[in-house]
């Protein structure tokens, strides 16, 4: 249900969004007034239990936690699981918990803008006059080999590094003059970042309270998030006893607990099993769609980026090489379709002659072991010709495979095949 990005309608919406330009245009959200004193529901989910918990007054914290736990169990089982949305992030309710859902607010159309950002380490230019605008509501992929400048860019975005030149604007505020704008950003780094001697619930509540979120709201929100990402049962278990996948999911929640409008994900699916990958992917997509939020995603897994990202920036040596939607990138850097032929035996007497002939047909021919792979503009036109060459040189074919151009092909085409230092 979340693969809607392939539908024509969504594609049209996305195209329209990208033609907005990079000016700071405002999207205004308005919500109807409440009639019962509670915030109006924009999503059909009942927020009442959140307010019941908040109104518990001076009840002991443990009692509040216990009543919340049962309330959440009830609501989750009755509403989300009952409607087949058990794995979905209950972000609208989280928004109620923060009081944001009924607050009229304005968001700039550009979530993050880098203007001529440069960072040097001695003579090495890690990021070189980088200009980039990331729109609100999009999943933005950043690709690049090691040393491309992705991590440095993200660290500058998070305020851990200061650019030597240029400016970074986050939600309409310049980071250098308004460091508090950092709170718009949540970061889920590649490596595990958690406190081993604290429980998931304690870690989330601590981070939320560090962002000035009242404790009861933080507690409620943390419980809801833990439920949504399958960590409910482990909420009171010390983090050191969680599995690697659970720790990764907890890390994602730690990046989101303060309700940032921009989420930076560094290799989000590393160390996750397929089930967790699907859960995290759906959670992130739901999070973005629900609140016109933004995700900046860096990964070496092209497949992951192609599946998730609306737009992709390819970087190398600190510079932006290309920026567009995955489909457009593939069209722009068309390398042709790939044909792979697996031969029965690598020690064929006429293989080299056959490869010479194939070079006349295909734009690129590679031979590794028993696999001969080649790229050509129109596979349909040339397939019979290629197979004829193998027949002519009496080379037995074991299997024939084809695949269309991928983002990885674009990446290799832009950044080359040379290995990079870590």
């Amino acid at each position, binding site marked *: 249900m979340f693969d809607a990005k392939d539908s024509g309608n969504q594609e049209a919406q996305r195209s329209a969004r990208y033609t907005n330009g990079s000016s700071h245009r405002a999207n205004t959200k308005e919500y109807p007034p409440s009639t019962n004193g509670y915030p109006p529901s924009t999503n059909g989910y009942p927020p009442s239990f959140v307010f019941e918990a908040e109104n518990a007054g001076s009840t002991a914290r443990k009692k509040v936690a216990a009543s919340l736990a049962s309330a959440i169990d009830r609501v989750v089982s009755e509403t989300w699981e009952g409607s087949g949305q058990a794995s979905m992030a209950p972000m609208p309710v989280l928004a109620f918990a923060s009081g944001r859902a009924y607050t009229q607010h304005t968001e700039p159309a550009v979530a993050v803008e880098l203007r001529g950002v440069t960072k040097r380490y001695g003579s090495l230019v890690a990021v070189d006059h980088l200009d980039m605008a990331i729109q609100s509501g999009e999943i933005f992929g950043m690709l690049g080999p090691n040393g491309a400048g992705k991590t440095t860019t993200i*660290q500058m975005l998070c305020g851990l590094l200061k650019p030597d030149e240029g400016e970074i604007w986050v939600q309409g505020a310049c980071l250098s003059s308004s460091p508090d704008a950092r709170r718009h950003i949540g*970061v889920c*780094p590649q490596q595990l970042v958690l406190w081993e001697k604290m429980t998931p619930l304690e870690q989330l509540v601590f981070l939320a309270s560090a962002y000035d979120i009242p404790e009861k709201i933080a507690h409620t929100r943390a419980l809801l998030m833990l439920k949504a990402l399958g960590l409910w049962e482990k909420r009171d278990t010390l983090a050191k006893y969680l599995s690697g996948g659970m720790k990764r999911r907890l890390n994602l929640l730690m990046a989101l607990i303060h309700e940032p409008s921009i989420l930076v994900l560094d290799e989000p699916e590393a160390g996750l099993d397929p089930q967790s990958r699907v859960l995290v992917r759906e959670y992130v997509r739901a999070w973005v769609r629900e609140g016109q939020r933004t995700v900046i995603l860096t990964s070496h897994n092209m497949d992951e980026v192609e599946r998730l990202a609306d737009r992709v920036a390819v970087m190398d040596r600190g510079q932006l090489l290309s920026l567009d939607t995955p489909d457009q990138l593939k069209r722009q850097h068309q390398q042709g379709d790939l044909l792979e032929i697996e031969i029965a035996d690598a020690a064929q007497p006429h293989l080299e002659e056959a490869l010479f002939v194939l070079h006349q047909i295909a734009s690129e021919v590679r031979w590794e072991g028993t696999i001969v792979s080649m790229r050509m503009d129109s596979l349909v036109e040339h397939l019979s010709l290629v197979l004829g060459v193998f027949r002519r040189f009496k080379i037995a074919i074991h299997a024939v495979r084809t695949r269309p151009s991928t983002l990885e092909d674009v990446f290799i085409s832009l950044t080359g095949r040379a290995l990079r230092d870590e």
Partner: protein
Amino acid sequence: MRRVARSLILHELSERTRDRWVLVISLLFAVLASAVTLYGRSAGAKAVGLTGPSLVTLASLFVPLVALILSHDAIVGESERNTLGLLLSLPIGRMEMVWAKFIGRGLALSAAVLLGFGSAGIFAGAVSRQVLWPLLLPTLLLGLAFLSLGLLLSALYKRQVSAASAVVVVWFVLVFFYDLGLLGVLVISDGAVSQGVMRALVIANPAGLFRMQMMEVFLGTQGLEQLGMTARVPVSGVLAVLWSAWIVGPVLLSGWILLRKKVI
């Protein structure tokens, strides 16, 4: 105090209470303090003269160790766990973060000291007012000074194991060998080093300052002279300045190092 700093202080305090080493050493301190007090109580009239100096020796050994263990991983530990970047991305300045860590761990240290003296107080009976109350504040100051030193070690080193090794060295040097070194200086110089210089050297070490301060409390000036110690404890104003310097100085230095640190 800003909410973020308060949250970090509570976070630090709660994490420390789960530190096995801190718990073990605190409990050992409590048990030994209780044993010393119980033994001293049996001395009857001489209870104060016997229990006081014994507790001073015990506190000067254990409290610096607990403090150093508590704080040596404050920054380098976060760095190794990759959580330093996360903490620094919170809306809190680096210097403010260092102070929050110091206060949080200081509270944990104070709890350990109170546990030790509290358990001793159960056995002390009537002498507790004469022995434990005068000890409490200087012991806390001694602990905070070593906590501050541990924080500095945690900012200086890039690996936690290196900081832990430095803790052992600092503890041995300042708690054990420093006094022996001064004694050696006295013997070698055959008394040529003036009392003023010796006094300055003694109070240059927080452990020495603590011992001198406490010896005067329990033995009095005459008692010190009988032991051949003619150095005097500085007046209270100077004492306050010295303790403040020992506590605040290393914390500020740690913050300064963290400000210059590149966090990945």
